[in-house]
């Protein structure tokens, strides 16, 4: 996903802003990374260009 598209994403729990940590990107988009809530510190993974913003209690370890 393009970095510009991340702008309106927020933490599903407290709706606070997220900070981006890039792990892998190509010319176009972020492929792997982390979105970290600036309020509660919860971490949301980006994998294969898709951020996983499920609330932590709904995240199944197998796929997240």
């Amino acid at each position, binding site marked *: 996903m393009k970095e510009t*598209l991340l702008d309106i994403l927020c933490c599903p729990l407290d709706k606070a802003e997220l900070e981006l940590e890039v792990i892998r990107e190509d010319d176009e988009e972020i492929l792997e990374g982390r979105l970290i809530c600036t309020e509660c510190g919860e971490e949301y993974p980006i994998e294969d260009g*898709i*951020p996983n913003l499920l609330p932590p209690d709904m995240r199944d370890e197998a796929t997240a």
Partner: protein
Amino acid sequence: MNVATEFDSWAAEGRDRGMEERHWHTAKHVLARMPVEAGETVLDLGTGSGYALRALRETRSAGQCYGLDGAPEMLRNARDYTDDDAIGFVRGDFDALPFATDSVDHVFSMEAFYYAQNPIQTLREIRRVLRPGGTFYCAVNYYEENVHSHVWQENISIEMTRWSAPEYRDAFREAGLFVAGQENVPDTETEIPDESAFPTEEWEARAAMVERYRELGTLLTVGVAPS
């Protein structure tokens, strides 16, 4: 997660594309009614194959588009089908939308809303993310008046909400959305065989199939976020 387990297998079996094809019969009319202006931000709840966003980008020059879904395989497929930098896919749940307050111009959802665990909470979340005057186009084939859809619950592990048309209007209002309109969008394309073909595997009588597709079709409820 229930939704992932259920719908990942659908995606793996190619049912995402199958749904796209069938839902398109009515979804295209629903999309055509949406007041999406060039550059506006659209959110698709339960995006499946992502076709709705691709269509709004192509035909209406929508701006940033977000497809949210709970099933990772659906999202992986949708991403594969999409070659457009302005469309992003996000894993998330209807009841806890990961979008900032007032950040979205329009929300679309086809054949997905009733899977929400807490549909009133989902509506409140939609109201929150919509800017004032933003619209929610909520299209469902599973609803009380569509008696032919009632059996669908038997084939799925997720509990589905079966509201009537007036219950949809009441729920929208309860969640703080204005109700701008409601209608049954007929499916005029699903082929209905000749009388002699009935009963078929799925349909006892031709009249029932006509009612299901040509009369009941898709229930569309349109909500608008207040100022």
